[in-house]
């Protein structure tokens, strides 16, 4: 796509009904927060034994605002060689979460490794997982305010964003021929003068 063309929003990731064009990397399902647990229990019973990952995406202008993405993999639960594992089924479940008071049911009891994954999404996106036994921050410090991976969270953090960046002196602001100020500049000028053979008297040198 030429870089000067701006794509339309329709059919893009920002469109909640759109599923991505054909890249066959997994089966993709979209569920609401209410039916999420039932769907995951069904998939688990159907052989999707491993919860690979839970990820979050913040689509700021969209409704529902967040997507929580569950990646499942169907592996055998008894010892199996490479041939028996074959090409396991991959399933991706996308759950839309509304922007105000975002919450989802926890699946900590279905897969124990959801513990840290849900804590991370709570930490970085502020989505609450109801029923999680120990929902606290995991990556950021406990006393941190805000959820950094939200799209309305500034990149440099709110504290640094509040302080203005240093304004650099424009060339037109500096009068022509004006010497740069400061102790460093003075010391430099002294050195230059010494190198040129000019004698510069300083208070220290006057002392016997």
């Amino acid at each position, binding site marked *: *796509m*030429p*870089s000067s*063309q*701006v*794509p339309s929003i329709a*059919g*893009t*990731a*920002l469109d909640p009904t759109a599923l*991505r*064009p054909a*890249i066959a*990397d*997994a089966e993709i399902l979209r569920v609401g927060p209410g039916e999420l647990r039932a769907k995951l229990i069904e998939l688990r019973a159907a052989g999707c*034994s*491993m*919860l*690979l*990952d839970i*990820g*979050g*995406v*913040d689509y700021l202008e969209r409704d529902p605002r967040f997507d929580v*993405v569950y*990646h499942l993999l169907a*592996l*055998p*639960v*008894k*010892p*199996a*060689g*490479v*041939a*028996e*594992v*074959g*090409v*396991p089924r*991959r399933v*991706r479940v996308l759950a839309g979460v509304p922007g105000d008071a975002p919450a989802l049911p926890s699946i900590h009891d279905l*897969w*124990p*490794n959801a*513990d*840290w994954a849900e804590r991370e999404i709570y930490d970085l996106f502020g989505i609450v997982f109801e029923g999680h036994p120990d929902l606290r*921050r*995991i*990556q*950021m*410090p406990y006393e941190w305010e805000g959820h*950094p*991976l939200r799209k309305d*969270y500034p*990149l440099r953090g709110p504290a640094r964003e509040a302080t203005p960046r240093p304004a650099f002196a424009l060339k037109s602001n500096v009068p022509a021929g004006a010497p740069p100020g400061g102790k460093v500049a003075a010391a430099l000028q002294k050195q230059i003068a010494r190198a040129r053979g000019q004698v510069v008297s300083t208070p220290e040198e006057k002392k016997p």
Partner: protein
Amino acid sequence: MSVAPPGVPALDVVEVKGNMMTLSLGPQHPSTHGVLQVVVQVSGEVVEKADMEIGYLHTGIEKSAENLFWTQAGTVIERMDYLSPLGNAMAYVLAVEQLLGVTDRIPERAQSIRVLLCELTRIASHCVWLGTGGIDLGAISTFFYAFDMREDILDLIEQSGGARMHPNYLRIGGINGDLPDGFLARLDALIEKFPVRMRELRALLQNNPILRDRMIDVGIVSTQDAVAWGLTGPSLRASGIGYDVRKAFPYSGYEKYAFDVPVRDDGDAYARFLVRLDEMDEAMRIVGQVRKELEGRGPIMIDDPKIAQPAKETIALSMEALIHHFKIVSEAFRVPPGDVYQAIESPRGELGYYVVSNGDNRPYRIRTRPPSMYNLQALKLLAPGNLIADLVVMIGSLDPVFGEVDR
């Protein structure tokens, strides 16, 4: 446990309750392989409960990547798993190439070089695991043998990409420049030296009675637990499941190469140790096969001026090349909207990138599936009922990398 001067509470003891003591192991502790804090409840020397604090190395890489161009994001992404930077780059470029729809148009030579470097990185990463894991068990000399081999590999990576650790050599559409003259000769020297070195390492370790005593039947993960806790990579394969992304979902031409996936059923630290050792041999087998394809020269970048930077020599001669170069450097390219999950087999397991594009010239979201994080989490399952000394072995055998756990 440190001895504190009178009047100052000892920092390591968090709480003493009856027979139980709550201790903090880490975050600055040599045996935690990075900045991991394990808050252990011990009765005597037996761990009753281990709770881990992570995030000491959280640098917001995912957030940073969202604010860089597609072409620039690779630089920060390489810094996640700092022992396997080329693995991270591989997963990222493959994901973006899928979104661009150019996966089939990547030159074969570029794919071969990618595989070569990823397998070399796998060996280098396992060398670090072997060396530091040896130190955990008191086998200091292992460290020097393993790091010597790693240094040879890092020299090769430096020669090809220009930097030892984070070369940003893999680019969307191919690789950045062909292998330099003299690279293949050094690679041949390494291929020749490697079996000797592996024999030495195995002689030093594999049947060492102390090592076997410390590792056998320590930190056993059953097959069911390994699947339920989302273990991948050598940790999963040591628990009996032969799942390897390179075999199940081949990428970058892995289906062309003959290699075996070592699988063991014991599930203990020793099984994980042997699986990794065997994997180093298999990785070298792939390197040997790729080596045969690398004679001569060929295209190493996709033939698409919108994605690939034109060669520097052409910029002074061609107006078009100058324009494309300017465009790619100043505003990169737009990637069609969509989302994709691309997994590769990193030295630690399934490393996945869930990449979302909204059609802009910056990634909308890059979510990493960090294998280390899920492998490490299983320590909560493994630790209770074991000695603190065994806890150290378990952490080492799970091979976490904290750049990736914390991102």
